[in-house]
């Protein structure tokens, strides 16, 4: 594995857009060349070296053999790992918005928390977050019919609103709670939420959403039966019937319907 370490020189106030921090981009470059890769700090184009210290194995390698280690506060560094196809990115702390945008393969492992739009329009690969994630995990771009189409996202903490909006494939697992409208307009993806959620599966056409905690269920969902999954008794619903959806929603504890 070729390891490259990226360390912010300071805390950023203005966010840095760094879609070029990606194994695919770094792989063919020497460390010297990586230092010259361009990123944006607000409206200023900067060389990576102006904002980050870059160290590690100097020689080019295949992208699948590249590991990029992000050490420090990356909470305002956006679009890391965008469109990456292989290799690994490991963040020791938090990471900013749009990490793993349109990612097709490889792995991003985040020890801290992730900003909004984590894995937006993701197609493959794996993202794991030890902490929490923001809104729109695995969602789409505004107006598009599809968000995430494939791959896997695991969040050990909680996630924000609109988890997996317009999900067209892939799996999202949240061990903690999800916010409002997880799995809205789901079109075939799989979502598992360990804790609670508010109005899951609105306008779901297909796919499954499992809430192992408590959830408020929409009046457009039809109760079917109680099922046993992984030792937990879950109420199974069909919906979202406003759109003749055939999605499956399973909830352990249903907030009193109608209240």
């Amino acid at each position: 594995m070729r390891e490259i370490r990226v360390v912010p020189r300071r805390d950023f106030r203005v966010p840095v857009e760094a879609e070029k921090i990606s194994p695919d981009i770094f792989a063919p470059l020497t460390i010297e060349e990586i230092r010259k890769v361009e990123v944006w700090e607000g409206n200023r184009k900067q060389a990576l070296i102006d904002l980050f210290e870059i160290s590690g194995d100097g020689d080019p390698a295949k992208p699948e053999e590249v590991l990029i280690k992000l050490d420090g506060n990356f909470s305002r560094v956006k679009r890391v790992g965008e469109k990456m196809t292989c290799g690994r990115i490991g963040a020791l702390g938090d990471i900013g918005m749009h990490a793993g945008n349109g990612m097709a393969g490889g792995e991003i492992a985040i020890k801290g928390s992730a900003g909004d739009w984590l894995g937006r329009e993701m197609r493959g690969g794996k993202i794991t977050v030890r902490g929490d994630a923001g809104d729109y995990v695995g969602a789409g771009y505004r107006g598009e019919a599809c968000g995430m189409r494939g791959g896997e996202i695991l969040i050990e903490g909680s996630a924000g609103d609109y988890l997996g909006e317009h999900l067209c494939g892939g799996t999202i697992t949240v061990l903690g709670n999800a916010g409002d409208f997880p799995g809205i307009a789901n079109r075939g993806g799989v979502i598992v939420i360990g804790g609670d959620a508010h109005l899951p599966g609105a306008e779901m056409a297909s796919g499954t959403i499992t809430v192992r905690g408590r959830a408020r269920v929409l009046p457009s969902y039809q109760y079917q039966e109680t099922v046993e999954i992984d030792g937990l008794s879950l109420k199974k619903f069909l919906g979202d019937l406003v759109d003749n959806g055939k999605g499956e929603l399973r909830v352990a504890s249903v907030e009193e319907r109608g209240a």
Partner: protein
Amino acid sequence: MIVEDVLCPFCGCLCDDIKVEVEDDKIVGVKRACRLGSSKILGHERTKAPMVRVDGELVETTYEEAYDRTARILKGAKRPLLYGWCSTVCETHKKGILLAEEVGGVIDSTATVCHGPSIIGIEEKGLAGSTLGQIKNRADLIVFWGANPAEAHPRHTMRYSSNSSGMFTPEGRRGRKVIVVDVRETRTAKNADKFLLIRPGTDYEVISALRMIVADKGDLVPDYVAGVAKADLEEVAGIMKAAKFGALLFGLGMTHSRGRYKNVDNALSLVADLNGFTKFVVMAMRGHYNVAGFGQVSAWETGFPMSVDFSRGAPYFNPGETAACDLLARKEADAMMVVAADPASNFPRMTVEGMAEIPVIQIDPFPNPTTLLADVVIPSAVCGVEAEGTAYRMDGLSLRMKKVVDSPYPTDEEIIQNILDRVRRLGDDN
């Protein structure tokens, strides 16, 4: 002298039948306008001269100095925010967008704190709308959802909706049904044939239940939905389907509550569903007289209706990331220009704190809390009274605002052009 058919520069109704009485180039009377419009046209205390902050205090200066300071602030910023634009004309918007491009800034309108969620909802579903006259002439059912025109758009009901009359609606209010859905019994609700009281933040669920009932799947809906009896929902759905032409007019009750753009998204779907049975249109009750105009201008200039980020030279759009409140709440903006709006009052206090730490430029005819936080204050002429230009009504109809009296102040458009010229000169020096 009476100036006829003046357009009112207050709310999204953009009433165009106002009579303004002028004597010696002073406005002395206003007829036909509502209390809100009259108040605006008759005028308020003005900011008298340009000001800059020196040692914590605003002191008067020249326009030239104010323009120079502004240009330097914007040019020096890495993430300048150009915000406001609701109470000015489209000609200003065009210049503002050009300025935002030039300084690599983020431009956003007050829509992001009113009907921005409606626009995001439209991005999901489209908008089945019409001009207001279509409603006036045809609608036999008006549904106000989270909207209170009696307070916010006082002439709306008389000119365009519940109490108006037209070709197929000769009986006016008597020939119509009015439904109000709200979390409190507003003055508008008191005039309704049917008032549906819902709990704050439950709009989405209630709309989903209505969609089920409209689609004849009511038997699957629980007896109570978020506290509302199913029988009430069945009655509302029945009235909607029985209408020959229904209009769903929604307000901030939908966009400011939990669910935000998803509430609108679902309401748009409800209207699309209803069109399978009858004719139904839907419209956002836009607040400021030309907040809709900014969305139009921005869309044709940049491709996107608000929250446009020009940092990298090409427009990037993502409210939630690039909206004014986002930039301020996260304290990432490093300079702000406010044009024809008052974010200090209208943003959450914690968001306003993001304004307090950065240089703020205000372009506005009136002093307001934003002035208290501003480092440069540039007074301007009042559009629609002292300056002409284009504005878009809440239904997307464009009209030309009139100039009724002369003004000692430059127009917003002139001010932005002056700043733009200076920004370009600074660019040339570099």
